[in-house]
């Protein structure tokens, strides 16, 4: 583990700034003095934030009346985020990362006006947020709501402050100090070949699982819904039109075409309602799960080999537009409507582990189910991809990395509130697998009423009426979280705009919103995975390294699509329900990736010799490792068939061997054989994930130990280059930053950088 250079960082002389320029950085003592300067107004504001946050937590955790108002979730979240950002991220900045604004960022010293371009911090915050926010934080909390509102709320809010935002901030910072290197490259640099290779394979397989399960969420949301199939299907011609518009007619008019696309999208949603109402429309767009899954697989392959400008780029514009718009709209609506939540703080499923939505007890399954909203390993790929190449000044990494993740957590809180705001009887009827409800309103009502939960009951009439209200044929067993969230969103939004007549519109608006960025994630994920596979195969067959080789690209795309497609079909045809068996695998995969990212960060911190502050990384790493390894072991070794894949496998194998023709929720020999096959695949995947993650964590511990023994103070950072620009670090410029900015604004024109 030899370091590239012996010095702990660039020496003072390296970074002497151009004397002709105003200061490119404020002295750290100025920042500290500003922070330590507590005026009475500042004290009053922070006291108010602390009191309001404290009161909100008391209302949520202690006062537990019959109901609790949703506004307390919002206040608890925002106040905790503000305190975490102001104090904890500041502590990390000051002691662990120590950004130095005298150093140029890759966006400055590698500037090419394209991939590397210094971007205004507020704009980059928007870009980064749009890149990290996806369906995960919307779906996970909905499924975790079966354990009650409190465990999920605590983990989403506390988890982000101490784990998720820390991971994003650290990875962003370390990648920025290394010219924007990817997580995989950093893993190889820090952990050596074995750890690096394990990290690469883990990333690739995790990507396959994540794409497969996101696709499963879409299939479950659209199957047997003529309205949904039509309106989401229409996004393809809309995106193609937008792509051609930008390519041939008006290049670069992004805002204009996004607005046109948005209007067409709304037209597609409204038109979908009309078409699903006609007899031929209902017949034509009513698609069963399996053909729909095959359709998405074919679509995924074609989308991934089409040029980016035709489909991916325009849909990405639409998806960003919808994402930021809808999330903002939902936040405002929750504050206006302030729904009363009647769900208990903690339900018996938290301890019994027999919840119908996802099985398993609170520890560890709550944490793997919520995943993205509190800690998301996938973000490490973004934070070490595009964002570090665009960041203007080092100190801004805190606002963008830590702050961006706080925003994502807030999205998760809103999704949780939306899911909690709907009637609990409806919630369970929608989220119990078809194996439990039989897929009928009578079966669902009987199942929900038989759960024996106090205050939870539903009638077949209510379920039928709700389906009519949201414009669906049925809402029974619409698992996957997306339909539940859509009912919740429709439930909140129709109180603000449109009344009950608009519920169906809002429901399909929400389905569209989720489907759009899931499809983008499927397409982008397939492409990224294809390049990783080509790169790996290229080590054996050099021709594969040539990414412009058409046949190679098609073969590798085909392999990746086949991989996630197989898992998708397995989920769709699973006699046990699909989501309840596969979603834990998704959460485990994501959290293992987070553990890998944190392990790489720990090795970097250790190499720098910052052992006094290594707990900042070690605590979330330890927690993520314990949660995911426990969850994986339960999935592998548990003797409870609902939890352990191999226990389930053994139970069904035995039944088959005994000559039985139905067992549990499987009603035929084929279904029983499918369970045996699926559980074997899922079990093997669990073993692969946990083994790879253990290798990475072990090599990281080894690197850390070696650094401790050698009293390492080395670094693998790129050498520092003096900066020639200045910009404030947070959302708002501080008085000292404003004064310095004024010095820069006095200069006649931008400095001419000398030519290459």
């Amino acid at each position, binding site marked *: 583990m030899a370091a590239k250079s012996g010095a702990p960082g660039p020496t003072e002389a390296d970074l002497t700034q151009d004397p002709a320029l105003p200061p490119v950085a404020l002295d750290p003592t100025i920042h500290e003095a500003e922070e330590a300067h507590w005026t009475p107004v500042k004290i009053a504001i922070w006291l108010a934030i602390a009191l309001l946050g404290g009161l909100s937590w008391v209302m949520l955790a202690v006062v537990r009346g019959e109901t609790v108002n949703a506004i307390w979730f919002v206040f608890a979240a925002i106040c905790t985020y503000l305190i975490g950002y102001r104090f904890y991220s500041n502590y990390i900045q000051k002691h662990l990362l120590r950004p130095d604004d005298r150093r140029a960022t890759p966006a400055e010293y590698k500037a090419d006006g*394209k991939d590397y371009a210094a971007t205004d911090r507020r*704009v980059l915050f928007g870009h980064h947020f749009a890149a990290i926010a996806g369906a995960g934080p919307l779906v996970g909390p909905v499924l975790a709501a079966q354990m009650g509102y409190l465990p999920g709320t605590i983990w989403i809010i506390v988890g982000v402050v101490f784990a998720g935002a820390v991971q994003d901030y650290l990875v962003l910072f370390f990648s920025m100090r290394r010219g924007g290197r990817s997580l995989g490259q950093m893993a190889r640099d820090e952990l050596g070949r074995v750890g690096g290779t394990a990290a690469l394979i883990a990333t690739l397989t995790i990507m396959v699982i994540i794409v497969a399960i996101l696709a499963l969420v879409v299939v479950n949301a659209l199957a047997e819904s003529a309205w949904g199939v039509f309106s989401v299907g229409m996004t393809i011609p809309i995106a193609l039109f937008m792509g051609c518009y930008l390519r041939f007619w008006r*290049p670069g008019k992004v805002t204009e075409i*996004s607005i046109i696309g948005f209007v067409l999208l709304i037209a597609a949603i409204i038109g979908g309602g009309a078409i699903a109402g006609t007899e031929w429309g209902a017949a034509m767009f009513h698609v069963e799960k399996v053909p729909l899954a095959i359709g998405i697989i074919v679509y995924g392959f074609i989308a991934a080999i089409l040029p980016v400008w035709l489909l*991916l780029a325009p849909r990405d514009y639409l998806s960003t537009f919808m994402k930021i718009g809808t999330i903002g709209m939902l936040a405002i609506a929750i504050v206006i409507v302030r729904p009363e939540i009647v769900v208990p703080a903690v339900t018996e499923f938290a301890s019994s582990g027999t919840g119908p939505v996802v099985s398993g007890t609170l520890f560890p399954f709550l944490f793997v189910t919520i995943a993205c909203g509190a800690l998301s390993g996938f973000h490490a790929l973004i934070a070490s991809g595009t964002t570090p190449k665009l960041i203007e000044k080092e100190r801004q990494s805190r606002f963008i990395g830590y702050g961006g993740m706080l925003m994502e957590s807030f999205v998760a809180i809103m999704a949780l509130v939306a899911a909690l705001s709907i009637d609990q009887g409806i919630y369970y009827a929608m989220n119990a697998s078809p194996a439990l409800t039989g897929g009928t309103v009578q079966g669902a009502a009987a199942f929900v009423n038989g759960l024996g939960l106090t205050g939870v009951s539903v009638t077949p009439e209510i379920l039928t009426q709700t389906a009519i209200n949201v414009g669906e044929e049925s809402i029974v067993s619409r698992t996957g979280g997306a339909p539940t969230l859509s009912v919740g969103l429709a439930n909140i939004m129709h109180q603000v705009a449109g009344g009950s007549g608009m519920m169906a519109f809002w429901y399909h608006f929400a389905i569209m919103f989720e489907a759009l960025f899931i499809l983008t994630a499927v397409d982008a994920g397939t492409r990224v995975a294809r390049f990783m596979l080509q790169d790996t195969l290229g080590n054996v067959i050099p021709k594969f390294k040539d*990414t412009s080789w058409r046949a190679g690209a098609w073969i590798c795309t085909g392999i990746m699509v086949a991989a996630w497609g197989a898992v998708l079909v397995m989920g769709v045809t699973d006699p046990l329900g699909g989501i309840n068996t596969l979603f834990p695998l998704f959460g485990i995969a994501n959290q293992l990736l987070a553990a890998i990212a944190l392990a790489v960060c720990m090795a970097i911190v250790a190499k720098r010799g910052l052992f006094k502050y290594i707990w900042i990384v070690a605590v979330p790493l330890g927690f993520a490792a314990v949660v995911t390894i426990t969850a994986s072991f339960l999935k592998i070794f548990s003797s409870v068939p609902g939890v352990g894949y191999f226990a389930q496998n053994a139970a069904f194998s035995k039944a088959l061997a005994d000559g039985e023709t139905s067992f549990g929720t499987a009603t035929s020999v084929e279904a029983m054989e499918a369970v045996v096959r699926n559980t074997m695949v899922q079990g093997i995947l669990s073993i692969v994930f946990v083994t790879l993650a253990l290798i990475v964590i072990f090599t990281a511990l080894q690197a850390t130990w070696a650094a401790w023994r050698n009293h390492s103070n080395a670094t693998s950072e790129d050498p520092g280059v003096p900066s020639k620009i200045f910009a404030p670090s947070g959302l708002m410029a501080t008085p000292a930053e404003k004064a310095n900015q004024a010095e820069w604004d006095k200069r006649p024109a931008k400095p001419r950088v000398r030519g290459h």
Partner: protein
Amino acid sequence: MGVATAVRSVAAGLAWYVRSVSGEDAYDRYLAHHESVHGANAAEPAMTARQFWRDRTDRQDTNPQGRCC
């Protein structure tokens, strides 16, 4: 007058933000960068708007960016 100016500056700020977040200003930024490096009448001319936007999406073909779950 104070209110009108304030409204105008907020609207301008909002327009700037939407334009920047959507990425519409990418070509302007590229031009500014190109000029600062090469000067206005350099031997290496800047790409035209059409060339720039084609190049931008075509480079994504070989350098895909992940999207989160």
